[in-house]
């Protein structure tokens, strides 16, 4: 089961690297969050610290929401500037 969670996280990493838009990047980020949450839950089950694993998973899930909100706000700002949300245009936010 740990390998499954690693695969989910790895595929999230693949999605983050290979997609060209900010929304695709955020989808990959959510997959990575799902995989990392599952890692903590499974590790807690195996090591006898079930509750601690679930608490770590809860905090990771809620922290993922914060990252999502930041991604959305950057995407909106980029859309105001460039009328598209390609990752190649993110440097426009530095100006």
């Amino acid at each position, binding site marked *: 089961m740990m390998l499954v969670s690693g695969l989910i996280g790895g595929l999230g*990493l693949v999605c983050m690297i*290979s997609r060209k838009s900010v929304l695709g990047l955020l989808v990959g980020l959510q*997959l990575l969050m799902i995989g990392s949450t*599952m890692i903590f839950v499974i590790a807690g089950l195996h090591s006898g610290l079930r509750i601690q694993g679930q*608490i770590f998973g809860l905090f990771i899930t809620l922290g993922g*929401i*914060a990252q999502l909100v930041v991604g959305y706000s950057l995407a909106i700002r980029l859309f*105001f500037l460039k009328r598209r949300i390609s990752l190649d245009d993110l440097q426009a936010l530095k100006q």
Partner: protein
Amino acid sequence: MISWVFAGITLAAVFMATFVAHIRVAILALWVAGLGIGAVYLTLGAEFLAIVQWIVSTLVTISFLFFAVMFGEYDPPEVKKTGKTLFVQMISMVLGCVFAILLGLMSRSLPSGPQTEFADGSDLKILGRILSQENLLSLEVLALTLFLVLVGGGVVARSEEGDSS
């Protein structure tokens, strides 16, 4: 056994979310993956986290669809498969596989097999007590972080003069 069924469904949905070209289908696959992972948590005895995962996945999916429509990404993009694109995809797949294999190898050092037998039938009561007594400061910090992110996101995303040009 039922955990593996849900894990298989989740893995299939994650594959689809990663490799499909339509952002709409990828978002729906992400939703299925979230529901599947919640079902895995439920079968492993983590009921609270399962419910949180289902709620978060559903809300995230709705917001993703909303933003995909707003940004005009509802239709599939015309992607040209250049050599650089294929190279990046191959490198990212190798990185993902290395990440999964490393995690699988490290999991062998865990002390024992999964403990799915619960003395009191559920972890919910203990979880609530530990969250409210031992992790109260962490919860407050998380709440403050989410509030600041909400306000900061609004500030960053605000429109200014000349943006439309």
